[in-house]
């Protein structure tokens, strides 16, 4: 019967894979394996859309950096490198605890999973705290683009040799473009952190209830992917905004 469409029993497929049917199993998936793979693949695709989303801003940043090079040098010198560095360390630590959390879920250690999720959350909040302090500093120095933007402090330490000279007025105005992109990119990143922290509360509560101690770890794994994505975006933002323009010669 070459051209008939035969049918398998669900039971037969289950026999082949020796799967225990978990309560989280959705009816339209044939196996647990299929469900887990579909979820993970969906998450990767979603992260791809996120890359395209941030990509628009990275594109704008590279374009304007090329055009208004002195302004971008002067403006990036006004960013708080120690705080940015501290935040990089904090975020990587948070990502490290998240990775441990995924491991704890996979080896079905409920207590450890909850602890690691809480540690991830704490370091996530620490990052946002430092970020808020940086934003406050920008407010005090009148570096928020818009009405009260002040260009007095922008000097280009290296472009004129040993002398520190202010930028030409029209170029100094372009520092606003830098600060707009700084706020847009770090703000969008912080928004992703806030959404991530909200999800962490929900996952910690579910982990506490014991949802992820039975071998069903897909939500933890997929959230781990999201959290690492947020780390990686920052690992691009930090050098681009804080570091690469500081010593132009």
């Amino acid at each position, binding site marked *: 019967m070459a051209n008939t469409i035969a049918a398998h029993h669900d039971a037969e497929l289950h026999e082949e894979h020796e799967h225990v049917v978990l309560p989280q199993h959705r009816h339209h998936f044939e196996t647990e394996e299929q469900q887990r793979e579909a979820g993970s693949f969906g998450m990767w695709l979603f992260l791809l859309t996120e890359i*395209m989303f941030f990509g628009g801003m990275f594109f704008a940043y590279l374009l304007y950096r090329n055009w208004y090079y002195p302004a971008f040098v002067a403006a990036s010198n006004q960013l708080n490198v120690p705080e940015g560095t501290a935040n990089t360390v904090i975020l990587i630590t948070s990502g490290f605890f998240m990775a441990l959390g995924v491991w704890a879920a996979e080896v079905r250690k409920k207590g450890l999973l909850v602890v690691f999720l809480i540690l991830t959350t704490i370091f996530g909040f620490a990052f946002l705290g430092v970020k808020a302090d940086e934003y406050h500093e920008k407010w005090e120095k009148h570096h928020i683009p818009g009405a009260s933007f002040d260009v007095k402090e922008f000097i280009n330490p290296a472009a004129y040799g040993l002398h520190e000279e202010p930028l030409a007025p029209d170029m100094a105005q372009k520092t606003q473009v830098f600060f707009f992109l700084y706020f847009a990119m770090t703000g969008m990143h912080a928004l992703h952190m806030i959404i991530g922290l909200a999800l962490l509360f929900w996952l910690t509560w579910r982990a506490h209830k014991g949802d992820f101690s039975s071998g069903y770890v897909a939500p933890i794994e997929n959230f781990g992917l999201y959290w690492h994505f947020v780390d990686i975006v920052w690992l691009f933002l930090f050098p681009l905004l804080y570091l690469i323009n500081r010593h132009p010669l």
Partner: protein
Amino acid sequence: MSASTYTIVNLPDQATATMPKRHYINNEHGLLSWLFTADHKRIAMLYLMSITFFFFIGGAFAGLIRLELLTPQPDLVASDTYNKFFTMHGIVMIFLFLVPSVPATLGNFLIPIMLGAKDLAFPKINLLSWYLYMAGGMFTLAALVLGGVDTGWTFTTPLSTHYLNTHVVTAATAIFIAGFSSIFTGLNFIVTIHRMRAPGMTWFRMPLFVWANYAASVLMVLGTPVLAIAIVLVALERLIGIGVFDPTKGGDPLLFQHLFWFYSHPAVYIMILPGMGVISEVISTFSRKRVFGYTAVAFSSVAIAVFGFFVWAHHMFIMGVSNYSALVFSLLTMLVAVPSAIKIFNWAFTLQKGSITFETPMLYAFGFMGLFTIGGLTGVFLGSLGMDIHLTETYFIVAHFHFVMVGGMLMAFLAGIHFWWPKMTGRMYPESMSKLAAVVTFIGFNLTFLPQFILGYLGMPRRYHAYPQEYQVLNVLSTAGATVLGVGYLLPMLYLAWSLKYGEIAGDNPWQATGLEWQIQSPPLTENFTEIPVVDYEAYDYEWLANKTEHEVTTVG
């Protein structure tokens, strides 16, 4: 081994067909069972209803535009009201009709069934994307009710950010939200196609409709986020006056153009690719042959998706991109014509020596092939630099993209709706009435848009509500055509609604087609397949079916 077997039905069963007792429509009752459904078929029906609603809103604005252009004098409305008309027509038709039409209705309904799956990979995200679509639609209506938007659907900066005091932010929010709807639809389709295929359903056994939607989904997933960020930046620039697109603050309006067209040119392929998928199915079924060059047609969808991302800057030939980049983008633009032509030629070869019958879907498919060919060829004109400089922003370009998107996409949508109507509702549409509608649509369409090619060539600019006396004859023809076209759209609305109650019972497989969707009952069960099928035959295996009818079909049991 198998308890029941699906056998391709080889005799017309319409005469004896009865409506199945239990199916996805009557499985649950009440409004809430629809609003909270996770069934891809019900979500497809929700989309069909809401998309039809927005299509008629967009169509009403088209009617108002044509009415104003009946006379050379600006006698119906003032210029800013006219601007609001064409903006609303563009926004509604593109973001709320053309982009979601085939994927969200036919794709949602058919892709899981064609793959032998019980549902899409993420049913709840599927429902969420319908709610996002509706929210986007409501914001669009809000922008309309609050007083309209007059930027044109392209939101060109700094016009949209500084000089027009209308509801740009509301409309931008609408598009941002509707964009997420299409991202989630695309994501759901890609995961489903990769992970939910039934045993034996290899990539090269998938129907071409699935391939086409796969390519369109890739475009949705990669392109839409870029539109989202561009729209966010426009809204921020309006709201708090930051200067990323404002030249007085060091920004660059051209950046907006790059970000916007990076999505909005591929969006044309998001619209047309699923339509091409429909045409492959229809042509194969009604010429009783496997689609000629199946692999070439499948890969041409992917090629269109890939090339689609490298052509955006042809929208900027007259806006100050450098000569070299214009040259490169001109060549890349023409390259897209190659995979499109592969499809057209392969359909033509499929028809050759086929046993062709002219059911309504086939009439629409023929309409598609003719109109899309004209639209595609005029696209090559516009891709050439010298011609583009003469013709851009004239009615020539209006005629061109209406030929591609209305003549192409809308014809394909109507072909698909008629083709799968028996499967979706279990009832046939009235055949002679629908043939009449197809012919009226075709005549009305040509009468509307052929004069616009001439108008554009003669130099009538788009987006103006008054014009010199000598253009009137052609404009009157165009408006008359739009009226005929309107009748052509209203007819299916009426007789399809009529057929829901009075249509002939369709039976499982009224077209004697080979796809998996025709092997299950019409309308299908909520879970599509009681047992997941094992596929061991190629798509469109009509040669086998023809031989099979000579013998008794034995059932494995």
